[in-house]
C-alpha cells in the first residue's frame, strides 16, 4: 500500500563501529575501513541490501580532505573511490549506490574561520573523486549549517545525478546554527535538488513535527532518516538506545503518508531497516 515510499539504509558510522568491536578491530574513523578492513564495509552494505534497502550510502560521510589528512596517510580519492567500488561490487544494480558526504568539522564564517572558497574546494575534491567511480546519486546528510549545505549542494549539482539533502535538527525545531525549515526550503529549492528533509537529530518523536513542516512548505520529495534517539549510558556503563527496532518503525509510521524516502540514522542497525520494510509491506 505504501510501496511508493523508497526504503533507505540505516546508520553506517555506528553500525561499522559495532561490527569492528565484534571482530576485535581497533576503533578508527570509519572511512579508514574502506582500505584497512573492506570486508566490514562490504558486509554492512550486504546487510542493508538483504534487509530491503533500495538506496545504500557509501562509507564516505566524514572522508573530507582535512579529516583524511589529519587521521590517515591516505588520500581523499583513495578512501572515497574504494568506498564507491565496495558499494558497487556488493550492490550491482539491485539497489542505488549513493555517494554520501557530511559536514566539515570546521565552521564557516561568521561562526568559525573557514571561508566559502576553501569549503567549496574541499567538496569539489571529495565529490569529484567519488563521481569518478560513477555512483547513481549523491546524498548530503546531517548538515547543521545551511550555508555549508548550500555550498556542497551547488558542487554536487554539477554532476548530472540526483542530489538529496538532509539536515539535522535540535529540540527547538531549528538546526544547531539556527536555520529554520522555511530558510532551508527557500535556499535549496532554487538549486533544483531532488530530495530534501531531515536526518539524525534527536529520535523519531521529535523529528515528526519537523518533517511535517517540510511537507507544508515544499513540494520537493521528502527524505526522513531520523536516529534511534540519543543513546545514553546507564549507571552500569551499558549503552542503551531510546528506541528498539519495532518501536522505531511504529514511531516513524505516521510519516509514510508525506515522505518519499525513509530510513534510519545513528543507532539504526539492520534490524531497524527490516522492521521498516515490514511496515512498508503492510
Amino acid at each position, binding site marked *: 500500500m505504501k510501496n511508493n515510499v523508497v526504503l533507505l539504509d540505516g546508520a553506517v558510522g*555506528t553500525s561499522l*563501529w559495532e561490527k569492528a568491536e565484534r571482530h576485535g578491530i581497533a*576503533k578508527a574513523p570509519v572511512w579508514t575501513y574502506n582500505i584497512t578492513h573492506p570486508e566490514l564495509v562490504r558486509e554492512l552494505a550486504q546487510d542493508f541490501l538483504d534487509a530491503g534497502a533500495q538506496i545504500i550510502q557509501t562509507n564516505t560521510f566524514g572522508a573530507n580532505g582535512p*579529516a583524511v589528512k589529519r*587521521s590517515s596517510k591516505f588520500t581523499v580519492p583513495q578512501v572515497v573511490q574504494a568506498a564507491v567500488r565496495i558499494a558497487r561490487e556488493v550492490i550491482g544494480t539491485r539497489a542505488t549506490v549513493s555517494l554520501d558526504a557530511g559536514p566539515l*568539522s570546521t*565552521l564557516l564564517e*561568521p*561562526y*568559525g574561520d573557514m571561508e566559502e572558497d576553501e569549503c567549496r574546494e574541499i567538496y569539489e575534491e571529495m565529490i569529484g573523486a567519488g563521481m569518478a567511480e560513477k555512483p547513481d546519486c549523491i546524498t548530503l546528510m546531517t548538515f547543521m549549517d545551511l550555508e555549508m549545505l548550500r555550498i556542497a549542494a551547488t558542487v554536487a549539482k554539477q554532476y548530472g545525478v540526483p542530489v538529496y539533502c538532509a539536515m539535522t535538527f535540535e529540540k*527547538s525545531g*531549528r538546526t*544547531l*546554527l*539556527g536555520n529554520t525549515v522555511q530558510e532551508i526550503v527557500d535556499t535549496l529549492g532554487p538549486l533544483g535538488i531532488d530530495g530534501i528533509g531531515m536526518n539524525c537529530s534527536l529520535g523519531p518523536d521529535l523529528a515528526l513535527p519537523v518533517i511535517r513542516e517540510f511537507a507544508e512548505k515544499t513540494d520537493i520529495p521528502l527524505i526522513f532518516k531520523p536516529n534511534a534517539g*540519543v*543513546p*545514553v*549510558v546507564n*549507571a552500569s*556503563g551499558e*549503552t542503551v538506545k531510546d528506541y528498539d527496532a519495532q518501536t522505531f518503525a511504529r514511531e516513524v509510521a505516521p510519516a509514510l503518508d508525506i515522505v518519499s524516502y525513509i530510513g534510519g540514522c545513528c543507532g539504526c542497525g539492520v534490524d531497524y531497516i527490516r522492521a521498516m520494510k515490514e511496515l512498508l509491506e503492510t
Partner: protein
Amino acid sequence: MATLQDVQNIILAGKAKLTPGVVQEAVDSGIPPKDILNTMIEAMSIVGERFTRNEIFVPEMLITAKAMKKGVATLKPYLAEGATSAMGKMVIGTVEGDLHDIGKNLVVMMIESAGFEVIDLGVDVTADTFVSTVRENPDTKLVGLSALLTTTMPAMENIVAELNKQDFRPNIKIMVGGAPITQEFADRIGADAYTEDAATAAVVAKKLVS
C-alpha cells in the same frame, strides 16, 4: 571616542570584525586597559547566563565568543603580564576518538573570560598528551575533558584513570562535560566536577581553585 559601554555593546552584538577597532578606540581614549578587559568579561558572563537560561542559542554564543577573542587579542599588548590569567592555568581537550569541539570551544572561551590561561589541546587527545602537558606545565590547576559520543566515554574514563595515577593529581582538579556525560558518570570515573554548560563551567572552575 569609545566608552566602556561601547565595548560591551559591540561584544554583546557579536561584531567580531568591528570589535578590535572599538577596543583600540577605548584604549586611545585613555580608559585603563584593565577596565576594558573587565567590561568584556562582564559581557561574556551576561551572554553565558542568557545561554544557560535558553534565551540565546549556540550561534549567538559562537559569534560572541569570536568577538571576545578578537577584543582580547587587541587589548593584550596593553595589559600587564598575567592580567588575563590571574586565576591559573587550565589544560583542556576533547578525548581520544572524538572530534566534536563546538561545545569545548565555548567552554574554553568562558573559562578564559573567567581569568584562566587555557592550553587547548584540540580534539582526539590521548591520555599521554594530557599527562605530559600537565607535567610540562606544573602550575596547571584544572584539567578539562570533553566527550560527545557514548563510544568515547570509555576513553574519558581511561584518561581520568591515568590522571588519577599521577603524582601531580593532588594539585589539579578534573572537570568533565559533553552532552552524554552525567554527574553520575563523572562521580563513577573519579572526576572532580561536571557541568551541563559552558557558563556554569566557568563558575565552577573559579570555585574549584579558590
